[in-house]
């Protein structure tokens, strides 16, 4: 088969000592970048870019790619151990990953995250190799109304993310939507909710907000609660037990599928993929009450999804020449500076680059598992470091991370503010997760909604005329009924009782 020939060709190129070395370097730096809260792949790749100019383009791109998916591996470590997203795409891993760590299952959670990521990475590698063409078709037929439908579906699903009251989570989603709308309106150029602060003109920095809510908020509440160690039970075993493995497997499969699909869409990638996977997992689970309290599926699915999404987000870049997120924009810059023109012809003109990168992804994933599994023992020891030392390091890295996204001290203040919010929210019985999803989705929903209406010259039928959009809206409606009906019935039952 031609495919195997091409893959073999890619592997041949990827296992030259030089390419192996740069693949390993990328994976290793990526792991570090992932583990350190805030310090993200965008800032790191931007810093490393000049170094890559002197390398052959294939080696350079292999290294930068390794850095991106390596960060997906590392990010879960911090999320699980100290409840702080090492990477924005591991925000959702905090929910159940850290709960598992508190129950003494930190080792198991780390192992599941690493193995799940490896499986997802392997599948995503083959998806890129086999399905690039049809995946591009999806991305290039999706018009504004279809994105709107998809995002509405995501928003409805956000309500499902909530563990407690539906009303409170709806409120949180709405607050998130408002926060997500801060900034310059793309259609009219008007400023909204910026209070004349120019730093808010592009919106609130997502990294600052997420690290504030989860990271700084967690530090404050730990200090308030014990002023010492957070309550962590002793680690029982470093490996997942049979029951955990049995529950993780299907979740990894679903996470991989969702991550691979969402990664291809513009604006997608690891972040939306991990949230999507978590929501679906919770909805499908027979034990939704366990989510948030250390459900294995809540670690396995999003971790598989973010790695799959990170890798499939290369598809639009490699096949259309269109970057779907900030990391891909930097990859595009690296290619352009090396004199490579990314576009539909890349696969034909530079098959060496295309296939070597794909093959290196699998090799990189293998390396990451080998790097990460032995480290689990070491990471778990981190839980024994007295919290009064640990929290200082955490806060410093959070500040570096928040600063380095836009080189902005303002963003550090934003993080501090949301740190207080993140501390107070659980006190009033609200959760930050639906809020964060609202923040992610708000700009997409609004932008695509209004753009659709401009395209249709004001006709609302456009949302029903396009089958993809209509389909998503219908499913959203069913979801909403499924959530609302039981509570309505309960309400009526109570009414009858009186």
């Amino acid at each position, binding site marked *: 088969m031609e495919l195997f020939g091409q893959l073999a060709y890619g592997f041949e190129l990827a296992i030259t000592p030089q390419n192996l070395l740069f693949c390993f370097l990328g994976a290793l730096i990526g792991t570090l970048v992932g583990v350190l809260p805030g310090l993200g792949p965008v800032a790191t790749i931007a810093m490393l870019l000049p170094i890559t100019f002197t390398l052959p383009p294939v080696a350079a791109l292999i290294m930068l790619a390794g850095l991106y998916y390596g960060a997906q591996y590392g990010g879960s470590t911090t999320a699980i151990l100290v409840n702080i997203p090492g990477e924005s795409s591991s925000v959702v891993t905090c929910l159940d990953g850290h709960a598992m760590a508190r129950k003494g299952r930190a080792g198991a959670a780390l192992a599941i995250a690493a193995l799940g990521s490896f499986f997802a990475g392997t599948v995503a590698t083959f998806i890129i190799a086999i399905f690039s063409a049809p995946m591009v078709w999806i991305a290039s037929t999706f018009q504004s109304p279809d994105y709107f439908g998809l995002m509405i579906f995501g928003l409805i699903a956000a309500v499902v993310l909530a563990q407690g009251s539906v009303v409170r989570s709806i409120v949180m989603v709405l607050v998130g939507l408002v926060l997500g709308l801060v900034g310059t309106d793309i259609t009219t150029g008007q400023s909204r909710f910026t209070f004349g602060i120019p730093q808010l003109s592009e919106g609130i920095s997502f990294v600052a907000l997420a690290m504030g809510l989860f990271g700084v908020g967690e530090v404050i509440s730990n200090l308030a609660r014990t002023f010492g160690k957070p309550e962590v039970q002793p680690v029982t075993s470093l490996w997942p037990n049979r029951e955990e493995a049995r529950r993780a497997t299907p979740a990894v499969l679903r996470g991989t599928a969702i991550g691979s699909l969402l990664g291809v869409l513009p604006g997608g990638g690891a972040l939306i993929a991990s949230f999507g996977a978590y929501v679906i997992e919770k909805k499908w689970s027979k034990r939704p009450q366990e989510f948030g309290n250390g459900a294995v599926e809540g670690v396995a699915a999003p971790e598989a999804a973010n790695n799959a999404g990170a890798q499939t987000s290369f598809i*639009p870049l490699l096949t259309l020449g269109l970057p779907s997120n900030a990391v891909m924009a930097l990859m595009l810059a690296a290619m352009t500076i090396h004199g490579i023109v990314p576009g539909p012809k890349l696969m034909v003109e530079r098959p060496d680059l295309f296939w070597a990168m794909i093959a290196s992804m699998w090799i990189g994933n293998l390396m990451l598992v080998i790097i990460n599994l032995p480290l689990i023992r070491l990471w778990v020891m981190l839980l024994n470091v007295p919290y009064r030392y640990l929290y200082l390091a955490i806060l410093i890295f959070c500040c570096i991370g928040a600063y380095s996204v836009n080189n902005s001290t303002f963003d550090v203040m934003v993080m501090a503010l949301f740190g207080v919010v993140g501390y107070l929210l659980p006190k009033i019985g609200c959760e930050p997760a639906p809020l964060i999803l609202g923040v992610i989705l708000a700009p997409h929903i609004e932008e695509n909604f209004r753009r659709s209406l401009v395209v249709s010259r004001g006709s609302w039928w456009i949302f029903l005329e396009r089958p993809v959009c209509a389909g998503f809206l219908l499913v959203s409606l069913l979801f909403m009924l499924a959530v609302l009906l039981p509570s309505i019935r309960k309400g009526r039952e109570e009414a009858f009782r009186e």
Partner: protein
Amino acid sequence: MSVSRLASLSRIGLAVVVSALFCGAAAAQSWPTKPITIVQGFPAGSGLDIIARIIQAPLEKELGTTIVFDYKAGAGGNLASEIVAKAAPDGYTFIFGTAGTHGINASLYKKLSFDVESDFTPIAPIVDVPNVITVNPKVVDAKDVKEFIEIIKKQPGKQNYGSSGNGASTHLGFAQFNVAAGIDMVHIPYKGSPAAIQAMLNGETCCQFAQLQTVLGQHKAGTLRLLGMSTSKRVPLLPDIPTIAEAAIPGFESVTWYGMLGPKGLDPAIVSKFNAAIKAVLEDKEVVAKLAGIGNAVRYETADQFRATIKKDRAQWAEVVKKSGATVD
């Protein structure tokens, strides 16, 4: 305080002033003695950043110091402009500006806390970035600019054109073209050029002004068609593609430049030294070839010529902005 004490104090004061002046002159002589920060108003990996990275190493060699890029993205580049406008003119903070940040923005934004001319010291332009009329042949099957105008004229208000953002040169340049060609289309802004090109590929928009380097890959694959360049001369990389001026609208030109500026009050000695270094880099064959390879033309001017360019362009863009009705808070 005795008179003699006062006199000696004032003498010390004079000595301080004199030595400060002298040091200032000496500082300009030996400039640069430490790394230079160049602020960019757009994120790492942007089209501007690609050019910046291409000239970085040769410029470092020319100046004998390290160049650090500081990305302060936001408000169409105004965040970065504000920082540099208020920076000390010590020769270590500059901005890699564009016809957008130092031309369009002056009239597009309702209020700016700085003036794009009086708060800056122009050093030198670096490249001209051509815009090109790009169409999706599946939506509007035009072979050249004339045919394109004819097709659109038959269906006023029907077709959409995209842009990389409200008030971007891709938006205003095409608005200018619409006025010049007497056609009526609907503008749809996207967030950045990848999203805009994607929309053109899936047919949500028919066409747009695109910066040449962003559509080279699609052009090669034949998925999008390039009809006319916005420059006054053809682009050497694609000599077969005529300019809009020669194809349909004589005299039409809409060019955006990228160039180096410092804060106001910069020592003229530093300005001329930096300008000379940029001149040397732009004469480097390898740099020219790299820039031309992605469709950009080197543009060199003296600092005074560059100041005049900014003044002229600002007035021209103000006209275009006014006609288009675009505005940003």
